């Protein structure tokens, strides 16, 4: 562990951006806990869609690219790289995060859920509503839309239009499927009520 600290401290002098990582690793025990050395390399332990994964990547790599390139989970999309469009939205311990700006080291030790792994009644009701209303057009942003909507519905089973605006405005759809996204969220909320969940 001393080596891990040492390496990060060295980096600290180079680049302001790396300060955040160093800070995280020094103050949050889980970041240390789930990073380990294996055959001389720093391995990061992740829990993705319920399965444990150990990855050998630069700890500063955005979670997005570890999911896509290292783990092959391409359902999570790259749209902007600066948390502007929401295409890369995943859940970290049930919260929606933009994985394009989330360092993989900050996701260590947390429950990471991607579009491939969502299985809750809320998620299933959303996917059903999305299919029933034929929401997607090109479909590229829809993983992120559903991931954002799932957090909204988990926290608020009866969202108003303005609740939907607040939760979904971070997700861009260039095809302009917003009207159907809104309708599908309402429909999913209704079906959850009928299901007594």
């Amino acid at each position, binding site marked *: 562990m001393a080596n891990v600290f040492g390496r990060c401290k060295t980096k600290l002098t180079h680049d302001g951006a790396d300060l955040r990582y160093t800070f995280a690793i020094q103050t949050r025990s889980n970041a240390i806990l789930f990073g380990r050395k294996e055959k001389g390399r720093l391995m990061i332990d992740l829990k993705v869609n319920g399965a444990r994964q150990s990855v050998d990547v630069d700890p500063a790599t955005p979670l997005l690219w570890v999911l896509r390139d290292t783990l092959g989970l391409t359902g999570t999309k*790259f749209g902007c790289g600066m948390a502007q469009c929401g295409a890369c939205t995943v859940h970290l311990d049930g919260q929606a995060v933009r994985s394009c700006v989330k360092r993989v080291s900050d996701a260590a030790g947390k429950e990471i859920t991607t579009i491939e792994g969502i299985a809750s009644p809320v998620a299933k009701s959303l996917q059903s509503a999305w299919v029933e209303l*034929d929401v997607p057009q090109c479909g590229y942003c829809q993983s992120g839309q559903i991931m954002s909507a799932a957090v909204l519905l988990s926290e608020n089973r009866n969202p108003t239009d303005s609740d939907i605006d607040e939760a979904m405005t971070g997700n861009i759809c260039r095809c*302009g499927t917003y009207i159907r996204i809104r309708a599908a969220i309402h429909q999913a909320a209704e079906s959850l009520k009928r299901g007594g969940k």
Partner: protein
Amino acid sequence: MSARLEVDRRDFLRITGLAGGGLILGFYLPAASPGAHAAVMPADSFSPNAFIRVGDNDRVTILVGQSEMGQGVLSAFAMVIAEELEVDLSAIDVQNGPAAKEFFNPAFGALGMQLTGGSASVRGFYPLLRKAGAAGRAVLIQAAANSWNVPASECRAEHGNVIHIGSAKHARYGTLVAAAAKLTPPADAPLKDPKDFRLLGKPAKRLDTAPKVNGQAIFGIDVKLPGLLTARVARCPVFGGKVAKFDATKAKAVAGVRHVVQIDAGVAVVADNYWAAKKGRDALDITWDEGPNAGMTSVDINDILAGAVAQPGAVARNEGNVDAEWVKVAKKVEAVYEVPYLAHATMEPMNFTADVRKDGCDIWGGTQSQTWALGAAARITGLPADKINVHTTLLGGGFGRRAEVDFVIEAIQASKAVGAPVKVVWTREDDIQHDFYRPGSYNKFTGGLDASGKLVAWLHRTSSASIFAAHGFGNPPVDDAAVEGAKDLPYQIPNLRVEWGHVEPGIPVGFWRSVGHSHTAFTTECFLDEMAHAAGKDPYAFRMSMLPEGRHKRVLELAATKAGWGKPLIEGHFRGIAQQESFNSFVAQVAEVSVADDGTVRVHKIVCAIDCGPTVNPDTIEAQMQSCIAYGLTAAFKGEITFDRGRVVQRNFHDYQILRMNEMPQVEVHIVQSTDAMGGVGEPGTPPVAPAVCNAIFAATGKRIRRLPINTTELRRG
């Protein structure tokens, strides 16, 4: 052209038995001789490219050459085949086919292009798909009739079965395909009477939705191959510039970076994965020769555009005698309208994958133009076209951007240079700063009213860069893409002239959803509103009085009626109206807006009427109108690419903003029941939005919006 092709041309339809049991229905429309872009297509590539396969398991597979970019083309083609073949939509699987001349869109005729654009897929292929489905139905019925020893006329097809009328005999298609494959298909199998349609014209579910809600849909950026490397390309930030020198030392020092190679577009950093390629490119030490555009600014470009309308341009249309009319008119109105350059900003950043080998080449990705992608691969690799395979994935948005092949070329050159499969992935910044932009346009209008308030003279001078000239469609005196809509103004104005000034400020331009209509609808329909106001007439009545009987008038009337034009609105809400014919479809929209004291505009509702002729899937038409409207609203309120020091100023979605959920108005779509010629639906909803909204803003504030994007600070009260 080979003798074989000549034979194929006489055979509209051909049938082949499928190894493993099945029936292939191949068909090929004798189009006019392919143009220059088609020269690379193999002359005899028929057999693997059949459109329809009926398997002995009753599944029907359709190969579609058109690209799915959200517009629903895969599902629409399936509906047309299912209708005529008499199978259920659920029995159909749709796949993208290869690049092949059989997939040239008949709508593009002699150009010879497998290209998804111009809202032309369904209208281009509709007759062909119907004939193929009907011919398939006919041979399957004949095969059953032969086996039962009854006349085919006593049999009919239904839900993937042939049924003998009057007996209990019936047979699944799957049991008939072996016998049907031995028959000669009729060249003129009867088509269904539209009144008997089960599917066409009725809302149906798309076939591609399920994989788009569970992460399984494969876009170009998701392509996986053994040994695949990822590249990011450093391109000169100034258009027309090039690499002066570069030092790869620092880039190669990044863990995971494998190669740093120069290609035509710049320098490609090729790495094990995206993040390594990104870090490698960031570390790359590169010096650019910025070329002649190094000092260019938006002010310079605007001066060029404005200068071009200070003098007469090439005449696109001339009716009566506008020049002689000015002395006679009772009232003369002049106005200048401007629109900016726009980026496409598809959600999926540009990317493409190539595997160039000595003996062949495979390329994968989302392209709107398989023909151009194949042509690029043939040029770069020197391989014959039959050694090149184009694999079309889903497109994460197209809007015209993916008709370009710059990103395809990058992937092919990078793979060729490093001798391994390479996926080039763009950043959003690359995408915003290296687009083929919707050209900016400057427009000077002069209109004249007679003493009765009748519009008697209309002079429209417009200037822009030429999209056609940039894409090898020649350099005609007038580029249709620059004046479409403006020269087709449907209003009966006795003296009318439209002129175009061709300028080339050095910015790459391309096809942007609805192309020229994206700005000509805004400029002409807003200036027309000005003329109505000058005449003291209601904008809707003014338009109706000048439209001939027909589709324009019908669709405008439908939109106005459904929107309650002339009826009271909620206090503070105002309406504006506009219409535009584009891509053979007629669309009219009424916008309902309010303008707050601080100038903030809220678009509450768009009522949209469309006449696109016979419909395939009304649910898709509704979705496309919503989509077109969102795209048009982004342009109206937000879209603007500006230039400084020869570079694009905007970088990402924070400064090239896109309409979001909270800004989306209610949209009401009304489809005219029409038996007129079929039009497109992927684009025609975009043009009328901006003018409808701006005309509503005038109704609300008395202020004319003559420049996009709308500057709301000018709308502040007090």
